[in-house]
């Protein structure tokens, strides 16, 4: 049996990113892999911004959480805390369940056992509006964009604002202003505002999806392979936005990717999802970035 943990300290308050995996199966491939990678050591984060309000409930919590598809594990019993303002990058081989893990952390899929908590709230799959009313706003970027195919780009961005207009206290004019501003900021051409997703390229769809996440002013961001299939200018735009989310002390961000440029540029704590376990992976050593050092 092996129990592992990652801890990070940052002033002025001691804050931590912790991971504790459940036991490996004796003699299994998981155990062999764990032997190869070695035990997890303490991890120190270099001075990330600290939010004004710092409650232990805030951020992303996994409490003895497991997730399995029928007989296949995606994550075995794991405790994880990503505090408010902290970030996590998840890597792993193709098909290991990174996207599933991300959606599950975002509360979009029900846990097989244990709990997922976002700012102390348990997300319910059938009533996600409870979270918004409780002040939890999630921005999720899907690999293929995840835009509603029967709505134009603009309506995709305004939909959630319109649905929660009473919660956000905004009127129709403000909804349109915010949506247009977000689309313009992400360099979506005005001619594409009224186009259906099927008529947009992957790059534009991803930018519209980012705009949709941005307008909600999220306090949790979950991005699935954000730079996959993008050209250089769009990739640069996505990196800039990711850095903005990373540097925002009120936003907790989880990103899944195997992209080396993204990993190096983000310079945030990295874990590898493998055999249903979260394992520490060597992080970015970019000297110019504010990231983890070991």
């Amino acid at each position, binding site marked *: 049996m092996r129990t592992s943990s990652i801890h990070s300290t940052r002033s002025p308050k001691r804050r931590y990113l912790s991971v504790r995996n459940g036991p490996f199966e004796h003699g299994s491939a998981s155990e062999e892999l764990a032997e190869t990678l070695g035990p997890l050591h303490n991890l120190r984060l270099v001075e990330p911004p600290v939010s004004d309000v710092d409650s232990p409930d805030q951020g992303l919590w996994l409490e003895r959480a497991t997730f399995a598809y029928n007989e296949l594990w995606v994550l075995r019993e794991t405790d994880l805390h990503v505090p408010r303002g902290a970030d996590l990058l998840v890597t792993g081989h193709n098909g290991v369940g990174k996207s599933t893990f991300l959606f599950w952390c975002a509360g979009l899929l029900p846990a097989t056992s244990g709990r997922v908590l976002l700012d102390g709230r348990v997300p319910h799959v059938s009533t996600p509006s409870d979270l918004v*009313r409780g002040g939890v706003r999630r921005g999720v970027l899907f690999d293929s964009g995840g835009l509603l195919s029967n709505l134009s780009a603009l309506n995709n961005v305004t939909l959630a604002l319109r*649905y929660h207009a*009473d919660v956000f206290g905004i009127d129709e004019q403000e909804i349109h202003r915010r949506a247009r501003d977000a689309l313009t900021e992400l360099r979506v051409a005005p001619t594409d505002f009224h186009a259906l997703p099927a008529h947009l390229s992957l790059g534009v769809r991803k930018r519209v999806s980012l705009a949709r996440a941005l307008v909600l002013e999220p306090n949790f961001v979950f991005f699935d392979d954000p730079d996959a299939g993008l050209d250089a200018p769009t990739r640069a735009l996505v990196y800039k936005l990711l850095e903005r989310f990373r540097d925002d002390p009120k936003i907790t961000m989880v990103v899944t990717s195997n992209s080396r440029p993204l990993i190096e540029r983000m310079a945030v704590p990295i874990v590898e999802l493998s055999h249903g376990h979260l394992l520490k992976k060597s992080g970015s050593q970019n000297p110019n970035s504010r990231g983890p050092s070991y």
Partner: protein
Amino acid sequence: MARLRSTLPYDPRTDRIADASWLGAVGRGTIRWVLDVDELLHTFSDAIASLWTPGIAARATVRRVITTQIMYTGVQALSLVSVIAFLLGASIIIQTNLMGSADGELLGKVLVAVVLRELAPLVTAIVIAGRSGTAMATELGNMKVNSEVLALSSLGIDPPRFIVLPRLVASIVSVLVLMIYFSVVAILGAFVIAQLTAAATWGSLYSGVSRGVMPFDLGLFLLKGIGLGAIVGWLCCHYGLQVKSSPTEVPQQASRAVVMSLLCGVVYSTFVTALFYWLVGPPIH
């Protein structure tokens, strides 16, 4: 007993249940059936429960979706229902003529019994299931494949409220309204053919229809309309949302949705007819 495994290294050849005994198979089948029924009931109960979910703006958004769905499900089916209703009404008169001479009043009562009480609800539900039910199941299946349902959840939009409830309501409203429309057009078709073939006079047919309609017909009509509409909307949404991640599942689930809607619709219609017969006795006498 099946054991949970790691995802890596994944070998599909090992992805099978080890326990192959007949008892295990029966047990797994039973568990799967219970879980399926539970999911089916949850699709309906979550949609109904969402009526009480707070959110003024959300309600307004859902109302707009309901209007759109009624447009697709009800209004756009008017022409198809018109043709079917007119021809069915005409066919009943022609068939009755073939059986020999019948007085207009009896023809009117036959129209009430066959068209109003049986054909109008059932044929309308069949048209809605075939025309809009497949569209609903396919649309929702594609939404699942393209992660659109997850995207809605991520935006804090309740899928039962935004996806299922509008289609359920639209289906109920459409079946009810189209049933009334179907009855009117079918009786009109019967009247027209009766005149053309000189089977009966307007007056005798009208008298037969008005004498054939009983007070309980309103209850029967409403119960069948609401029930059949709910069955079509509910099952088509449920099977559409059962699609997991593969596009090949979409036509399979759409087909299953329509077949189950038709089967459950016929069973429900027969059950309600039998219930009313048991409650009020044979009304034609």
